[in-house]
């Protein structure tokens, strides 16, 4: 240490009120640990939610419809979405894109070729093409084409293979086989009818429906429909985070419902967020008190050495020298406190990562970048506040 500071040490006694300083340091330490844990817990939770299962997809799709209640039964217009409702949905911050699912307004029958002896009434729906996850060059239709590309829900094939086919002694079919089956599709309304060949181009997990290109749907509804503009009853939403509690609340508030499986995390997320926020809040409150005690401690030192400081200044000690000396008394203290807090959280993180790994949940064994930034910010804040206090009371 500079010899001048060694002499200052004898003049400006910082030993006064040591218990107060200890309290302030302990408070700062606990506050930092709480804050860092809150931030780290947040990071971990995000890693768990979005870490691996969603690695390849940046967005998720939700099919939203109105809840069918007993009171609504028989009044299909009550389950329709109006244009305003779609607009409202589109305007929500958590919705990246939203589109109608248009249903067919005509009769559809499908018949399997050859010996399969399969004949069924069915329906079609369509969504804007950007929502289709089976990217396929065959996914297009224009007037005059005799082949309609169709996307089947994965569940449908499973139901057929493991439910229907087994019980009816029918052969099970693979996805490839289905794709190669030309299905005879008849579209009709009254006496008008058209024949098409349905070509299965893919299977979707996103939308549980029989999908055809929007172009075909528009044409067919126009030609075979009842002439009224189609009021859709289902909406598909593209969202980056189906576990977003705001989204779930929005759906609930409007009486909408969706695939519950996809939004099941939202409740957990809400609880975790609340807990993390409470911890973080206490951390911040504690930090403020620690800062207050630090400031009061500095004030106390300066007040108790007022005469000495005056004489020092009179003899030519620069204010900057005094400031530097006083800061030196505190900075190492909270740098050490900060390091201890960071180490503690790092150890906790490591233990947590191991414990979670036992349950096949993967989080990084290292604290996240957010925690490092927070630690740096807290230390800078403490430095800044102390520096200001010293400046204020020295003058």
């Amino acid at each position, binding site marked *: 240490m*500079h*010899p*001048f500071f060694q*002499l200052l040490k*004898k*003049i400006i006694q910082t030993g006064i009120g040591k218990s107060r300083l200890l309290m302030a340091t302990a408070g700062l330490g606990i506050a930092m640990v709480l804050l860092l844990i809150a931030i780290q817990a947040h990071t971990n939770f995000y890693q768990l939610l979005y870490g691996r299962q969603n690695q390849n997809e940046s967005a998720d799709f939700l099919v939203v419809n109105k809840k069918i209640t007993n009171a609504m039964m028989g009044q299909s217009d009550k389950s329709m979405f109006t244009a305003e409702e779609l607009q409202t949905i589109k305007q929500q911050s958590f919705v990246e894109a939203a589109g109608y699912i248009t249903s067919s307004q005509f009769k559809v029958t499908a018949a399997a070729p050859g010996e399969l002896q399969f004949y069924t009434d069915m329906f079609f729906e369509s969504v804007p093409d950007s929502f289709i996850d089976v990217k396929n060059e065959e996914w297009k239709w224009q007037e005059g084409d005799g082949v309609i590309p169709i996307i089947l829900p994965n569940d449908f094939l499973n139901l057929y293979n493991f439910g229907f086919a087994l019980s009816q002694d029918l052969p099970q079919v693979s996805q490839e086989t289905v794709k190669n089956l030309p299905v005879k599709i008849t579209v009709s309304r009254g006496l008008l009818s058209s024949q098409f060949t349905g070509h299965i181009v893919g299977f979707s997990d996103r939308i549980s429906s029989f999908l055809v290109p929007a172009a075909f749907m528009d044409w067919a509804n126009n030609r075979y429909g009842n002439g009224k503009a189609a009021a859709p009853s289902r909406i598909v939403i593209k969202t980056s985070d189906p576990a977003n509690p705001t989204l779930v609340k929005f759906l609930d508030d409007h009486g909408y419902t969706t695939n519950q499986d996809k939004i099941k995390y939202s409740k957990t997320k809400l609880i975790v967020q609340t807990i993390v926020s409470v911890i973080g809040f206490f951390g911040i409150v504690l930090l403020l008190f620690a800062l207050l005690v630090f400031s009061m401690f500095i004030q106390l030192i300066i007040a108790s050495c007022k005469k*000495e400081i005056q*004489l020092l*200044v*009179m*003899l*030519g*000690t*620069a*204010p*900057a*020298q005094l400031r530097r000396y006083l800061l030196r008394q505190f900075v190492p203290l909270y740098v050490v406190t900060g390091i201890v807090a960071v180490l503690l959280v790092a150890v906790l993180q490591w233990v947590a990562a191991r414990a979670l790994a036992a349950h096949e949940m993967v989080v990084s064994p290292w604290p996240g970048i957010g925690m490092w930034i927070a630690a740096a910010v807290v230390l800078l804040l403490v430095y800044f506040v102390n520096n200001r206090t010293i400046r204020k009371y020295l003058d």
Partner: protein
Amino acid sequence: MQIQLSHLVPLPLRDKLLQRASDIWNKDVTFSPGSFVKIKAPSGTGKTTLVHYLYHIRYDYAGKVMVNGKPWQDYNKSALAAIRQQQVSIIFQDLRLFDQLTAWENIELKRVMGPAPACTAEQVQEMAARLQVTHVLQQSARTLSYGERQRIAIIRALVQPFKWLLMDEPFSHLDEENTRRAAALIAETCKTQQAGFVLTDLDDDVHFNYDVQYQL
């Protein structure tokens, strides 16, 4: 470094001082660099006040104290500190040592405060030996006699670089022999540093070869 007084009058003593003749108060006075200045002042004429004005630790005056052409008020705290560390040194009448430090530490404080000390620790030892205070250097300043404290304060003022040394009755508690030694040391150090001094005292004296003498 030039010090100029321009119609300097202490506000609390204004009426009293303006009734009597003075070489300093309410006059234009210039202390030219390197000169030895003696200001003789009877009690109650503002001797200590003047020294404090010159050192800029009292501000209740009319007129101006100009340092290098600028009034003291134009210097900020850091500039003031730099001047006190490197250009202006002082021996207070009431000495103002730190009781919690030893005599040696009191001297060291001033020696190492600035960016470059004017002398080495060995030279401090020599000064202490010349003023016969070597034996008290390691004692707490609190336990020293007034005469010893005064000699420590004199050494403290000499260990920093300076162009002006302000002295307020610096020998008040020293016997003739010690006064002679202290004055010799001060004169020598001033010559080495090419510095001048302003000394205030109650009576005439022959401790120094003064260049100028004023009556306060």
